[in-house]
């Protein structure tokens, strides 16, 4: 089966088409639940996605992932125009590939994501997420944009395959689809997601073309939710290191399962995973 996928990047010696990628996650707005540990690094960045995007190279990330938290109705409920401006700001400050992820609220995403697809035709954005209830609205514009689309399913390999079929039937080329099985941090369902990523990768190796798409795993915001990572509790070890480790280990695990893109945020965690990818793939 011909494709650009490298199934086992950490085993191959040469002839690899594509190595796993680290996407540095940034936000249009820093929400209330942003962990204090991260504020030490990024407190001046709120509302300045362009500035954040500019820092991605410094952290040796391969991509930038803009999450439009500010557009969420429960956050600042930014409108389409502001969403478009945030994306513009990012694109003006980075030459890395850009992922844009919406709010997770279909009604809102159906407004902002098609508008972004339309506004940034030819910029090769990776737009997310299309779900079972709203994929048609997003694909309608995305398929003309030249970019890619992330389909999101709740840890469900069968639904992932079904949605991959439905999205390609709507006119999205199969090589412009990324699968995202909603990630979970270590201790919060990590192993369920791990097993699904692995099964999808195995299905791809046996020729299932609808599951032969890149897979995305988000460890950044999932780590926010893990009290083991964020709690300042001395008996659990030093908080800063613990947080970074929680995010890094989650990312490494998903990479081992077969994820192609890990979305990360903590600079030290990114550094550790960068080292892992570079050292394990140095012969490729």
């Amino acid at each position, binding site marked *: 089966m011909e494709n650009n996928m490298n199934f086992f990047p950490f085993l191959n010696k040469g002839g690899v088409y594509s190595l796993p990628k680290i996407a540095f996650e940034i936000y249009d707005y820093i929400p209330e639940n942003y962990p204090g540990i991260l504020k030490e690094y990024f407190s001046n960045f709120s509302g300045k996605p362009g500035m954040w995007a500019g820092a991605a190279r410094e952290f040796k990330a391969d991509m930038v992932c803009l999450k439009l938290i500010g557009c969420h109705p429960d956050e600042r409920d930014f409108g389409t125009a502001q969403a478009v401006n945030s994306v513009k700001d990012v694109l003006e400050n980075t030459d890395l590939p850009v992922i844009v992820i919406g709010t997770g609220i279909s009604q809102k995403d159906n407004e902002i994501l098609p508008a972004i697809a339309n506004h940034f035709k030819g910029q090769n954005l990776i737009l997310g997420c299309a779900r079972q209830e709203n994929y048609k609205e997003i694909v309608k514009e995305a398929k003309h944009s030249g970019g890619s689309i992330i389909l999101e399913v709740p840890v469900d*390999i*069968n*639904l992932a*395959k*079904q949605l991959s*079929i*439905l999205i390609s039937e709507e006119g999205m080329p199969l090589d412009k689809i990324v699968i995202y099985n909603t990630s979970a941090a270590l201790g919060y369902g990590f192993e369920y997601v791990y097993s699904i990523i692995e*099964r999808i990768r195995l*299905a791809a190796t*046996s020729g*299932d073309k*609808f*599951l032969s798409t890149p897979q995305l795993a988000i460890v950044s915001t999932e780590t926010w939710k893990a009290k083991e990572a964020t709690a300042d509790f001395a008996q659990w070890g030093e908080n800063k290191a613990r947080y970074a480790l929680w995010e890094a280990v989650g990312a490494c695990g998903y990479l081992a399962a077969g994820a192609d893109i890990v979305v990360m945020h903590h600079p030290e965690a990114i550094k550790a995973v960068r080292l892992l990818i570079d050292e394990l793939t140095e012969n490729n």
Partner: protein
Amino acid sequence: MYIIGERINGTFSNVNEAIKKKDKSFIQKLAVSQIQKGADSLDISLGPEFKNSTDAMKWLINSVEEAVNTTLCIDSPKFEIIEFALKAAKSPKIINSSTCHDEKLDKYIKLAKEYNSSLIVLTMDETGLPKDLEGRLALAVKAVQCIQDNDFSIDKIYLDPLVMPVNIAQDQAKTVINTIREFQIITSPPVKTIAGLSNISQNTKNRSLINRTFLALLMEAGLNSAILDPMDSDLMDTVKATQILLNKTIYCDSFLKLR
């Protein structure tokens, strides 16, 4: 499951007529529709009236190659016709078929090597078809030895245990299923297996039902490939459902839409 479409066969009266009248359009429609229905390869057989005709074989191959880009399974009892076809065809080829008779198999392996063709080997010899699993297995082992002695790749071989009609040799259905299972332990990795599926229902009632039920049983035994009628949509649906039940394909709600 590697599917070889069986419809371009001169034993069907409409195909025989098309060959006689040089009705290219009929043959090409048959080629295209079999591929569209899921065939990975097309069996090409002249049938009894034109069995010795190299002209007819050339015309048939050209007609098919003009319409589709696929592997051709050259089906003839005549060595000379097969050799001619291998020379004439531009596509990748499968020779259908040789028996395990020593001299014949040797000749066919050399032919397959010369034209970089795959080869279907029937587990029968000059004494006929063995009645039991052990007899077929013994012939298969001998054939594999001959293939290895000729330095021909096992990858290019399909072992065919020979399917008999269920209304004539009812006990043979289960023997064939078990033989398919046993063929897979002769070599590592296993040699590929094939069945001429429609033979099971020759002259029976409810042919489609018998064909698809037998195919599911053969697939469970590990069958890799079958020569069958891809225009039978119930049969093709059975392939898809069986692949899911055997955990070879991931289930999704649209599983019947997929090739």
